[in-house]
């Protein structure tokens, strides 16, 4: 299973999904009405490292995080 967490202002509980790459996650989240405003502007990290392509393999135990737009300071 892959755990998917939604950080900061995205008001969504973590998901535990049986997926093997980020393409599958994209398909699942694109069908989720809660996520429409966030997919375009969120970055994605796998095991706390930002990734730049959705052609990214996932394995059992991986943690995916979605990071919406930031504003520190």
């Amino acid at each position, binding site marked *: 299973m892959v755990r998917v967490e939604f950080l900061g202002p995205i008001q969504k509980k973590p998901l535990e999904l049986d997926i093997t790459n*980020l393409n599958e996650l994209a398909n699942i*989240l694109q069908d989720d009405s809660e996520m429409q405003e966030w997919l375009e502007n*969120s970055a994605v990290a796998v095991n706390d490292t930002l990734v730049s392509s959705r052609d990214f393999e996932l394995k059992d135990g991986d943690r995916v995080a979605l990071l919406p737009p*930031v*504003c520190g300071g």
Partner: protein
Amino acid sequence: MMLYLYDGALNVPKILEDWYAQEATSNYGAYIPFVGTVRSEDGIDGLSFDIYEPILEKWFSDWQEKAKAKGAVIKMAHSRGDVMLHESSYIAAVFSPKRRVALEFIDEFVEDFKASAPIWKYDLRDGERIYAKDRSTAIKGSGILS
């Protein structure tokens, strides 16, 4: 790691003094701090922050390596949770042998901090915590799932 996270407002004089003392005999010629303070605007009562620490630590450690390559050191403090008007939520400082490196680094570091550090800001208004979406920046590479 010279990254310091606190619950609530920063004790600015104490942090600046501690950092000064830490490097007092390190032979740096320049100590350039930037202090970010919450201003009264648009009727807010204050700001509030969420931080995702694992990625913040990696981001900071990459910057520390860049600083080290120039003989400099970076320190940073940030608040978690609520920070009210005229209190401070952010301090960044660069120490370097000569002033030019520190002046340039503080500028680049704070700009990248604004664009990349995994911290989310909310306005506090009438007891509500409202995400500051229009002042936020999408992290480079966002949108790969859309």
